[in-house]
């Protein structure tokens, strides 16, 4: 399948185009074309994977484990599609919400660099190549944070860069150790070696380094400090993009590594993860309820939701992993959407602070509906998308008799509900506070809400067609838990 390389190659070509283009009108049109192409492409790959099973491509014709292999299994294919959906919504959003038109072309250059990095991370089958994609993501996201050059942005950007570089450093150290021990960095080959290795304790030093590195990227407790330090500073478009994609790449890497080849001493690592998942959920949820800036509430919320995904990995039954995948899918869409709503609130009321906004229910009922859908989806109200993955995770937890983590998950849902109701009460129900009358207000039209409508519809459909998605994520989880198919496809290709 030569088409596997296209989710990486197409953004690369668009980067080139945006370097050459100066006019922001053309750049805007081209960015929407680019995102649409990516969506079509990822849907094509998704259905190919669904028909034919795992797809692989040996770059340059060098066979695994010598060359770099790109692999798309059910899990990666799903992630590619979600990434493309978010990318499309964000590019439409930039038409109205990105200030400074002269910066549009530069924004798109690094937007597509980020898309290239994320797609690369989701498709690669090589540990070092994954490291490279993480760096591509890190560099492009740093530039996206500081576009605009305000002092707060630079401060947030530097914190983000510094703390993430520590993660990259640990990743590289773990990678070096792993290569020294096994002599290979191809994930399938590693799985083949490590799954049959009697001296499994020797691998734990690498496992620990990778665990901390991905923990930083995924923003789990107690490594999440970079996220609340930086996510409230950039333009809301950028924050929404990051909320959907960045931390989830870390979670993806955790799930991939700990199902595929870090399976030695599993009892220890999984119980560690369960503790971390519980703490991440509860502490993220508590911190979210303490804040009044919408962006800060939602940023802490990202952290608490990461806990659910780690919880699925920690329970490690097919149902739990399927729940984690379904949860990622739902969370990426709904989380991005709540940030987009925050951007619309800012546009219409001139502030992100809950004390300074209000009365939106009367001013714009459609926006209220568009907030309610992702908010209730995140809380887990049926029939929206959040209910089913949470149900799967909690059911798997009860089946595995991990009652503590189930309790943490239920309590966190209460925190989520509390902070969503807080936003609802303050921004939508409360009377418009007179102080903010001074701010410049812009009227909203329906075109301004198109990306929100797209993502809200996706959330609703994920809930309505939950059975189909449940079957698909169960198949993906089976593939992850029993990776013999994955190993076979990569190592015996052609």
């Amino acid at each position: 399948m030569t088409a596997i390389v296209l989710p990486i190659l197409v953004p690369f070509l668009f980067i080139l185009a945006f370097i050459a283009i100066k006019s922001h009108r053309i750049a805007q049109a081209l960015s929407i074309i680019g995102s649409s192409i990516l969506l079509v492409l990822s849907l094509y790959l998704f259905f190919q994977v669904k028909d034919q099973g795992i797809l692989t491509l040996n770059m340059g014709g060098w066979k695994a484990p010598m060359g770099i292999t790109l692999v798309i299994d059910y899990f990666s294919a799903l992630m590619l599609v979600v990434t493309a959906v978010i990318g499309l919504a964000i590019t439409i959003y930039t038409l109205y919400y990105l200030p400074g038109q002269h910066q549009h072309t530069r924004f798109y250059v690094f937007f597509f660099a980020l898309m290239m990095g994320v797609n690369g991370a989701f498709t690669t089958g090589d540990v070092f190549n994954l490291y490279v994609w993480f760096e591509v993501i890190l560099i492009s996201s740093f530039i996206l944070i500081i576009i605009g050059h305000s002092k707060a942005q630079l401060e947030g950007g530097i914190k983000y860069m510094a703390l993430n570089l520590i993660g990259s450093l640990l990743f590289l150290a773990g990678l070096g150790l792993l290569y020294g021990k096994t002599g290979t960095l191809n994930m399938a080959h590693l799985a083949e070696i490590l799954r049959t290795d009697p001296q499994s304790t020797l691998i734990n030093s690498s496992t620990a380094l990778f665990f901390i590195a991905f923990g930083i990227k995924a923003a789990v407790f107690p490594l999440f400090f970079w996220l609340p330090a930086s996510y409230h500073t950039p333009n809301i478009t950028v924050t929404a993009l990051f909320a959907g994609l960045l931390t989830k790449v870390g979670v993806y890497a955790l799930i991939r590594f700990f199902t595929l080849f870090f399976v030695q001493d599993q009892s220890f690592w999984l119980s560690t993860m369960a503790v971390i998942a519980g703490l991440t959920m509860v502490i993220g949820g508590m911190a979210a309820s303490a804040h009044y800036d919408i962006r800060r509430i939602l940023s802490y919320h990202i952290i608490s939701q990461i806990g659910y995904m780690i919880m699925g990995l920690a329970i490690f039954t097919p149902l739990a992993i399927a729940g984690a995948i379904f949860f990622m899918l739902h969370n990426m869409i709904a989380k991005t959407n709540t940030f987009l709503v925050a951007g619309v609130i800012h546009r219409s009321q001139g502030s992100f602070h809950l004390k300074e906004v209000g009365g939106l229910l009367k001013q714009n009922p459609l926006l209220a509906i568009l907030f309610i859908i992702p908010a209730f989806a995140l809380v887990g109200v049926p029939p929206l998308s959040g209910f089913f993955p949470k149900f799967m995770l909690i059911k798997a937890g009860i089946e595995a008799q991990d009652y503590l983590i189930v309790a943490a998950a239920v309590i966190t849902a209460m925190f989520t509900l509390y902070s969503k109701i807080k936003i609802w009460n303050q921004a939508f129900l409360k009377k418009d506070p007179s102080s903010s009358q001074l701010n410049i207000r812009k009227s909203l039209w329906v075109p301004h809400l198109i990306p929100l409508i797209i993502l809200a519809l996706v959330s609703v459909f994920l809930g309505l067609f939950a059975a189909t998605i449940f079957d698909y994520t169960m198949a993906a989880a089976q593939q992850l838990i029993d990776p013999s198919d994955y190993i076979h496809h990569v190592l015996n290709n052609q």
Partner: protein
Amino acid sequence: MNSIILQLAARYIKALLMLFAVIALLRGHNHPGGGFIGGLLAALAIIYYSFAFGWQKTILNLRILPTTYISWGLGMVSLSFVPALLMQQPALKGHWVSIPLGIAGTLKLGTPLVFDIGVFMAVIGVTLLFFFTLIKNR
């Protein structure tokens, strides 16, 4: 700095370094060298020149701007994907043509060379961009 000796030497050393950069680029496929190292050497030649003559003069003398180098380099890199994609082969698969040159042996040209030249140009552009940005703000 305004030293006659440095300025006189810089002209020749720049040419030598450039030549060495191209050699490093061309031998890089099977030996130490390649686009990245060659690019660094070439950028070093220009930076060395700027030490002798000052960065303002160096920028004026540059026929191609650093950003242009980067975009052309990335363009070359993407060109090297084309043959494999057209022939429905795995991306970046190497394609070679051998041109016999009589006594001089055979000249082997291929898509990895195109890729390497792209990296070469991109590295020159990035290094010069870093250098000039830092030295301007000093």
